[in-house]
């Protein structure tokens, strides 16, 4: 746990941080900061807050729960639900803590519901990664959190179904959903899945339209492989639209992720973890 790193890489990392902030600042993003330690009143904790707590470094002080920042967007959503802000675009950098491990996060947020603006910011992020942060991501996985509620209706609330979805378990979904077309789709190539979805569920046309728009943005930014993920469930309930994960060559953990969310009003944010 105690790691002491002193090497030339550190200065590059710090330089990267400043370049990231400067780059987005130059594109009209305000630089923001939030406390590393967040405090929660017991009675004000939401389902989202409670769900995340076991993954956080937490303690109780003066009758309130304290937790180290786990994810910038998460903290920003909580802030937006409490305070008004003037910024329309923001950029940040700083440490986050997952189950006791400290890592760094860089990211940006667009507090606007205009998709072109959101997509422009995604393009900027990918551009930055291409130029300065380890090169262009090779792969993107893209989902839309409005898909499943339409396809599955109320059944999406069943814990067993949610578990099977989150595990992409074709076997389990077959057992749970019977004839429903969804399980069979999972056996198809990802590229074919969207196609079949459109014909099976004409009512989700507009959502698939949106997805296609974002896919376009990703491809124009230079990303070669873009896979749809039709069974994705949001980790936190404020995510309610498109969600994107970017991967480097031969890497199994995403280098960046984020999506559309609602905190009083619609927004879009993506973060790089490193």
């Amino acid at each position, binding site marked *: 746990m105690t790691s002491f790193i002193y090497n030339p890489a550190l200065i590059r990392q710090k330089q990267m941080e400043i370049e990231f902030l400067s780059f987005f600042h130059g594109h009209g993003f305000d630089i923001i900061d939030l406390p590393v330690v967040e405090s929660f009143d017991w009675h004000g904790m939401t389902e989202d807050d409670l769900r995340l707590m076991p993954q956080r470094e937490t303690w109780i002080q003066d009758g309130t729960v304290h937790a180290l920042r786990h994810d910038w967007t998460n903290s920003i959503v909580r802030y937006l639900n409490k305070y008004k802000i003037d910024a329309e675009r923001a950029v940040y950098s700083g440490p986050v803590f997952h189950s006791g491990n400290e890592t760094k996060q860089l990211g940006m947020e667009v507090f606007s519901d205009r998709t072109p603006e959101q997509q422009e910011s995604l393009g900027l992020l990918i551009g930055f990664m291409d130029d300065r942060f380890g090169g262009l991501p*090779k*792969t993107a*996985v893209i989902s839309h959190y409005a898909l499943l509620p339409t396809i599955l209706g109320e059944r999406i609330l069943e814990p067993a179904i949610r578990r099977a979805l989150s*595990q*992409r*378990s*074709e*076997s*389990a979904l077959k057992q749970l959903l019977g004839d429903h077309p969804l399980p069979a789709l999972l*056996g198809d*190539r*990802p590229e074919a899945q969207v196609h079949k979805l459109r014909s099976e569920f004409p009512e989700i046309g507009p959502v698939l339209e949106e997805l296609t728009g974002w896919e376009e943005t990703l491809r124009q930014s230079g990303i070669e*492989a873009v*896979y749809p*993920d039709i069974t994705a469930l949001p980790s936190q309930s404020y995510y309610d639209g498109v969600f994107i*994960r970017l*991967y480097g060559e031969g*890497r*199994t*953990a*995403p280098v960046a992720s984020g999506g559309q969310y609602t905190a009083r009003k619609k927004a879009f944010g993506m973060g790089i973890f490193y």
Partner: protein
Amino acid sequence: MITIALSKGRLLKSFLDYLEQNGHPRWHGALKAAQRELLVEAEGIRFLLVKGDDVPTYVEEGIAELGITGSDILAEYGADVNELLELPFGHCHFALASKEELPDYRTIATKYVNYSRSVFDRSEKPVKIIKLNGSVELAAVIGMADAIVDIVQSGDTLRMNGLEERVRLDPINARLIANKHAFFTKSAEIRAFINELRVG
């Protein structure tokens, strides 16, 4: 190239039988030939032969894109992986066993602490659970515990130790698991492996 973590021991034997019966001579041959090697490559697939408990770790960490292990392991450790498919081998089941039938089993010895806890929670009974790493039957034999919760295949081990199955619990089989991200980034290779396996 795709990497697959395989559970050694009982499950590997069952997998080999399946391969043999379903016509995968080359995988079967390569894996069969492996004596004490832990790494076997065959036809563009790299197999890692590891302890069943470690399969989810290898897959979760992305060292292997796929893994084959028992549903007992997954039930116990709850890894953050995609549990793609049930596989048609490695069948056995969980059981509660004891020397004598009792109205209530208050102390349980087991390797499967989390699973046992969930079983007793489902039946809404409080219980004390003792974690052992092996020879769990012994705990019931010498009275360290009222009963044990363990995997039962033939039931021979229980009988040999003078124990009897009291409650047949969940069935167990082999599962194909995938790393959550490789599921997409290696989707073609994964799909190819699944097809190969199924068609037999």
